[in-house]
């Protein structure tokens, strides 16, 4: 005979499986694929960004990385008082990280759409960036 505890374990297992399945369907349905990056509400292609900003190389825990300086990018797009804002870097899979100007200005954006910072945990190295929101 199935005890109450066994019944609860089975119900919870089915619940987490359903949660995982529906979340996977939701993630798949809402994934954003686009060729541009939205920065402070305006759309830019990677080519545009790379043509208007200076390149910089930084040393990270995974070696040297090269891309355009995020500091230069934010200044070029005309953000007033960059140090007064936080910046939310968003990926196409909804992953996002919020960082201050002090950190952002040390970072780069690569030509494959990933940001790197020299002195942060890897969790801040957002891949497949689709938006940099100025807050």
């Amino acid at each position, binding site marked *: 005979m*199935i*005890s109450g*505890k*066994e019944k609860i*374990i*089975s119900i*919870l*297992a*089915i619940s*987490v*499986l359903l*949660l*995982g*399945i529906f*979340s*996977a369907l*939701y*993630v798949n349905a*809402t994934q954003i694929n686009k060729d541009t990056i939205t920065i402070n509400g305006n759309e830019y292609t990677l080519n545009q960004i790379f043509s208007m900003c200076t390149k910089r190389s930084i040393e990270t*825990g*995974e070696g040297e990385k090269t891309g355009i300086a995020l500091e230069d990018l934010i200044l070029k797009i005309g953000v007033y008082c960059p140090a007064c804002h936080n910046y*939310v870097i*968003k990926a196409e*899979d*909804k*992953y*996002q*990280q*919020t*960082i*201050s100007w002090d*950190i952002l200005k040390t970072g780069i954006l690569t030509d494959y759409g990933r940001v790197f910072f020299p002195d*942060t*945990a*890897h*969790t*801040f190295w957002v891949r497949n960036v689709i938006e940099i929101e100025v807050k």
Partner: protein
Amino acid sequence: MNKMKIFAGILLFGSLWGFSEIFIGSALTDIGLPAGAIMTGFFALTFLVFSRMFYKQAGMQLGMGVIAGALRLFNPFAGCHLCSALAIMAEGAIFEIIWYKISFDLTELKTITTRVSMGILTSYVVYVGGFIVTQILTPIISGPGFYIENLISLMPNIFSSGLLPALIGGVVLPATILIKNVDVNVKDRLYYPTTIGISVLCWCIVLGSWFLVSS
């Protein structure tokens, strides 16, 4: 079982867990497989459940998580060392919470359905819980600070990522319980040299590799 024996067991299984996370986890990442899901669903769950059955000691899995996480900090390969270390420590703690009401002789897990269900449930909650904890603690510990909206936007991804470890856990836990009746009674004169020797070997290999890569 005396405390020294349990402590040696924590050291052994924690070191093996951390060692496998570093070397097997990194190899799986290199060949493009979902390392986190496989490591939790297969290796972590095996070590956690086996140690629970063998030592019958609550709190031991928490200690194993701390040892494995500490070893993972010295990963000589690329990746987020702090994130993984925090996730592993959290996984040990979450396992303790889930298994708090399960008796040491596993009387609740008599049928294969219950064993599969418990494997799915444990693996899913341990993986998802570890993922959430590391998303909260990594930004706090590393400096920039935690923003709840970042976690909320990632929640569907976190919930969906638990699916694979859950399915693996549904196979691994019943398989691990099959070895419950195997007599692994080791004499004290062999137990301590073996457990401590293997643990020291794991730490020496990891620290040696880390030192070579760093210098």
